[in-house]
């Protein structure tokens, strides 16, 4: 057993211990210990995954589990950690570690009985995610996958006294289970067609499958993993489930878990099937584009901070899918190096999103927890109540808005570059598609910036908009600490993405067959040649340096005429009464222009009425105007609700069959019997 195996076992054991400790805990110190142990195990996992990325695959045989239910290889268990697994393990463990650390303080807002459940649940959740990454057989993968769904479901309904939370959990559970069904189909098709149930075995045999089977596998995997990743139109569960969960769980789900949908998709489509026809790529690209744009557009009009973040997860999954789709397209066109570029962008964005979305959810958790409301309109001014959290949220907002020098910018930049590289493929369809998608992506990131100015500005800046916000306490230090780790990663990966990119390219050597260079060096970017053979121009470190230089110049300008005295005075009030917080720009108001511009998309229902405000002595001094805008979310009505109501309607109609009349029941038997007799006679012909 080498170090990598040992570390994996240690971290699995640590997470299991954290789980048990959490569920069994009676005292607060045990809850804390559970979270800390989980965080530590995650940190070990991080080290282990980096070792595997640098040192190569842990083969399936090295960590086999004892034989279990025999009868069929379908039920075989086994662990395998190839570079793709390791990369996602890295994604899981870094965010997981920070989130578990932050949870130490976050959990304290719950009554003691609930804390233990939260601790154990979070530990188990992370454990199942680690297992999903390292599963080497379809059975273990499915078990871990479904366990992950279940544990997260129980965490979503943690506050189950709330009816919305129950409903959100149910939709999540059912959709996820249906998705697992689709995954099952794709796996079973692969397993029965190749006669193997390990990734290696399937990958070896999948090349010779008939196209029909491959298409079916692809579609099933896309639906299955796409649902977990919350790809439009299989996203209905996410905007409700994430806000309903405790915020550290939202961070784990939105930051980490949905990435595993991407993992599964890459595993099946590239790892097992080795790519496919171009319509696969175009399908993924289209869904990615729609997800990105629809996600951000709906995010903009949310006033619930956590819902807003949830919709951004849909957006970012869309962005990642754009990278995956572009990678598949390039591979199909015969450009493995370009495929590697696009996929590297996707993988890096996956990690980046895991970092900044966890960061943002933790920040939102602090804000929601300390103010007791999720409504942006009731927050405000939190930057003074919780400066550390505000700084962290600020970093996260910059990163998710793809602004330099943070990590989100790097991955989106890579994505733009890969789209641009389409011009060297000579395929006009690819060129035009990717150009359109580049515009979509640009619009998306512009709107994301818009949305986060709104979110940060309304929630953290200006004056408190409610008493809750005014009286908000200060969040626990471990929460801020966890955010600090994530923020540091966001900055580090933005300034020096070289190492991260090197790690992200390691799985691609296998997946795309591109001769992607290895070794930690500044030239990693140039090892991903674009189509024309030139090197890709980006030195994020230099950008950061130039920004620093610019700050120096600004500082010089400031100081050139002596040290400035800061004068603090009242806000400029146009000479009217002193403005009150009620006069501040609201979240609704902030989003209004975009609603207006994309009216055809939102189809807002606007109502305004006015009534005279009567004051003694009963003269009309003013009219009270009320304006409401309501945005139905037709996107939520896609796929799930119609299916659900259709099923219920069908069930109600069917239930009339069980009318209670015994004669009807006898008639069913009669009809069945005669029907079968006729069938046998008609199909089988007269007896010989």
């Amino acid at each position, binding site marked *: 057993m080498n170090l990598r195996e040992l570390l994996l076992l240690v971290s699995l054991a640590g997470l299991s211990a954290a789980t048990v400790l959490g569920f069994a805990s009676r005292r607060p110190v045990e809850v804390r210990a559970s979270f800390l142990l989980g965080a530590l195990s995650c940190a070990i996992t991080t080290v282990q995954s980096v070792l595997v990325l640098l040192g190569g695959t842990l083969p399936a045989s090295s960590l086999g589990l004892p034989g279990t239910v025999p009868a069929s290889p379908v039920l075989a268990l086994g662990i395998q950690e190839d570079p793709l697994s390791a990369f996602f393990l890295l994604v899981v463990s870094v965010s997981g570690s920070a989130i578990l650390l932050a949870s130490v303080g976050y959990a304290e807002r719950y009554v003691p009985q609930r804390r233990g459940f939260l601790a154990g649940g979070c530990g188990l959740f992370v454990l199942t995610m680690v297992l999903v990454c390292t599963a080497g057989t379809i059975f273990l993968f499915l078990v871990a996958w479904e366990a992950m769904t279940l544990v997260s479901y129980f965490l979503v309904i943690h506050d189950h006294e709330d009816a919305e939370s129950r409903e959100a959990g149910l939709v999540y559970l059912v959709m996820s289970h249906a998705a697992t069904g689709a995954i099952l189909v794709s796996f079973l098709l692969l397993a029965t067609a190749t006669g193997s149930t390990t990734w290696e075995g399937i990958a070896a045999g999948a090349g010779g499958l008939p196209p029909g089977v491959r298409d079916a596998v692809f579609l099933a995997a896309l639906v299955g993993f796409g649902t977990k990743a919350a790809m439009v139109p299989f996203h209905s569960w996410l905007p409700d489930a994430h806000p309903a969960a405790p915020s550290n769980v939202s961070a784990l789900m939105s930051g980490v878990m949905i990435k595993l949908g991407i993992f599964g998709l890459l595993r099946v489509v590239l790892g097992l099937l080795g790519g496919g026809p171009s319509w696969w790529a175009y399908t993924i690209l289209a869904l990615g584009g729609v997800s990105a744009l629809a996600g951000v557009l709906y995010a903009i009009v949310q006033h619930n901070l956590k819902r807003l973040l949830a919709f951004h997860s849909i957006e970012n999954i869309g962005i990642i899918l754009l990278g995956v789709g572009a990678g598949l397209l390039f591979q199909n066109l015969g450009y493995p190096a370009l495929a590697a570029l696009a996929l590297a962008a996707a993988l890096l964005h996956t990690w980046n999103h895991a970092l900044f979305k966890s960061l943002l959810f933790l920040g939102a958790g602090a804000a929601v927890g300390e103010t007791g409301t999720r409504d942006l309109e009731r927050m*405000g*001014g939190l*930057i003074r109540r919780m400066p550390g959290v505000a700084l962290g949220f*600020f970093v996260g907002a910059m990163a998710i808005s*793809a602004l*330099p020098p943070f990590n989100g910018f790097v991955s989106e*930049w890579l994505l*733009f*570059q890969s*789209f*641009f590289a389409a*011009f*060297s493929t000579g395929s006009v369809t690819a*060129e*035009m598609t990717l*150009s359109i998608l*580049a*515009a979509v*992506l*640009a*619009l998306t990131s*512009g*709107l994301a*910036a*818009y949305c986060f*100015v709104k979110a940060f*500005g309304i929630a953290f*800046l200006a*004056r408190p908009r409610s008493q809750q916000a005014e009286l908000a306490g200060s969040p626990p230090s471990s929460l801020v600490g966890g955010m600090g780790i994530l923020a540091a990663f966001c900055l580090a990966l933005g300034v020096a993405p070289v190492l991260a990119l090197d790690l992200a390219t390691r799985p691609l050597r296998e997946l795309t067959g591109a001769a992607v260079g290895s070794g930690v060096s500044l030239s990693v970017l140039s090892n991903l040649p674009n189509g024309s053979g*030139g090197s890709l121009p*980006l030195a994020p470190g230099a*950008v950061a340096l130039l*920004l620093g*230089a*610019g*700050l120096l110049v*600004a*500082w010089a*300008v*400031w100081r*050139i*005429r002596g040290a*400035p*005295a800061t*004068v*603090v*005075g009242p*806000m*400029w*009030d146009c000479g009217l009464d002193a*403005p009150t*917080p009620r006069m*501040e*720009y609201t979240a609704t*108001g*902030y*989003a209004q*222009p*975009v609603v207006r*511009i994309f009216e055809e998309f939102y189809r807002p229902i606007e109502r305004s009425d006015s009534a005279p405000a009567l004051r003694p002595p009963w003269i009309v001094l003013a009219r009270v105007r009320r304006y409401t805008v309501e945005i139905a979310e037709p996107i939520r009505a896609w796929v799930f609700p119609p299916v659900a109501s259709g099923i219920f309607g069908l069930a109600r109609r069917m239930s009339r069959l069980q009318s209670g009349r015994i004669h009807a029941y006898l008639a069913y038997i009669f009809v069945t019997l005669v029907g079968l007799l006729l069938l046998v006679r008609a199909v089988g012909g007269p007896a010989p």
Partner: protein
Amino acid sequence: MTASVPAQLVAFVGEYLLVLGLSPLLLAVLGRVKARTQGRVGPPLLQPYRDLWKLIGKDAVYSKSASWVTRYAPAISFAALLATVPLIPWFVLPSPLGTFGDLIVLVGLLALSRFITALAATDAGSTFGGMGSTREMWMGALAEPVFLLVIFAFGSPAGSTQAGAIAARGVSLGIAYASPPLLLAIVAYVLLLLVETGRLPIDNSATHLELTMVHEAMVLEYSGRDLALLEWGRGFKLAIMIGLLIALAAPWGISTSWTLALVSLAVGIVVIKLLGAHVLVSRLEAGVAKWRLFRVADLTTLAVVFAFGSLALTYVVGGGA
């Protein structure tokens, strides 16, 4: 031909000096030409410098409800704009340190500047700030796809998103660089420039009417040194955008050799080109009234059409030469 490190450094600093130093003047020219067109005298050409100096000497006043965002935003915004300078080939190719990033980085830096300014605008809690902030941000969001498509349109024939590479191709091709796709891309870029830099008919920096103002509403809370940084930054954002247009659309005149004489000549040429372009912009501004705010979306849509048309034409007729 690669230059020596000291020469590169000198050129690098020179670019900064050129843009920083020239941008108030360019603003003044803009204002003056506009005034002349409208039959007024207009401020003297050195007025912007005096204004800046005066503002730098003043203390900044902050609102009680403002946080550190308000304090640092001007500097960050300024720094982000400054960082774009080396991305554009001003007078020499390959431009010094020009390979650290490309035009997408430039878009990112402009977005950073916009983001932090818009955020600061919401900081104090004034109604105007929020209004300016939301307007700035949605206009910026609509401009981004245009910018990307324009970059693709200019860049696809050169196979690079770096302004240096695109300009180098233009210089080497000479007049053959001009082509129908280029023309469409230029039109798209000009529309983009108007939105991005807040010129008429999009925004009017001279107005303080709350129904219409965008940028002014955002910086309403600022005073003293901070305002100086913001105003200066605004000025050279215009210079940068115009400089980029020049580099992409009419790169002729940029020196490809590092001899002092040729580079000096190139500096002269670029100054003239900048002045000329500003004059053109100011004539354009003088001729239009401010549009309704939401027509910006129409404008950006039009720009998308042009940029995409350019891409399509590139495929059909080739990108020049």
